């Protein structure tokens, strides 16, 4: 019997793709669409209420973000966001509640390593790159904007 693997890496890779169970993409997309859409509608509702209460528009937007972040944090703390995420996928990852979840989840988990090196050092373990790349891109493009509008 031949004990050597009679297969190249690329052939094996193809075989894996052929045999692997496909993710239920249509179902996933529908759920992501609905959940994502609903979270945005919740945001709109909060924003509308605030504006009706006479809050200035820009402040209302910030308050809306803070409220959604609170909801995301709360659902994470009561062990629900992970369950929602399992079903909703990107529908709950992409909205700002998902950003909140990715800050809160490591904070909860790394408490066992202490307040400074655990919670403090790991809070942005998942969401850190969002800030790094978001801020870096905005500074670079802000600089480009400045150069084009104020120098030329």
């Amino acid at each position, binding site marked *: 019997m031949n004990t050597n693997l009679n297969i190249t890496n690329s052939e094996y890779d193809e075989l894996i793709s052929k045999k692997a169970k496909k993710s239920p993409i249509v179902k996933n997309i529908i759920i992501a669409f609905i959940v994502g859409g609903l979270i945005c509608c919740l945001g709109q509702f909060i924003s509308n209420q605030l504006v009706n209460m006479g809050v200035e528009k820009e402040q209302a937007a910030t308050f809306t973000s*803070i409220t959604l972040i609170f909801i995301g944090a709360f659902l994470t703390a009561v062990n629900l966001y992970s369950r929602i995420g399992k079903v909703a996928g990107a529908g709950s990852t992409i909205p700002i509640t998902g950003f909140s979840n990715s800050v809160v989840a490591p904070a909860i988990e790394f408490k066992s390593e202490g307040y400074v090196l655990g919670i403090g050092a790991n809070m942005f373990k998942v969401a850190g790159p969002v800030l790094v790349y978001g801020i870096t891109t905005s500074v670079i493009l802000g600089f480009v904007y400045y150069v084009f509008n104020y120098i030329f």
Partner: protein
Amino acid sequence: MDILLEYGKVFLTGGIICTIGQILIDKTKITPARILTLFVTLGVILGFLGIYEPIYNFGKCGATVPISGFGYCLYKGTVKAITESGFIGVFTGGITATAGGIAAAVVFGFIASLVAKPTIK
């Protein structure tokens, strides 16, 4: 009727943005952390290119609640600060505009870590 249409547009915009994310997750091996990073960066770039503005005007919270809206907000804040205070705005604008969200996430994260315990899914 107007209110229904308004929420319909929000739902549609938010839904489509999340759908793009879902397709990326299912069709490529991109992890959730990378998806978030990609979307926030795209938000900044689309803001710069003037593409996110019309999406926002159409979808309102459907465009601002997804993490790409966070990127858009960073860029819009930068432009606003440049207009108000010149070059220094390049550095101060983005974080000023998003400070509320970032501070909220940090504080709620800290409080949650004090009271919550992780569990098995």
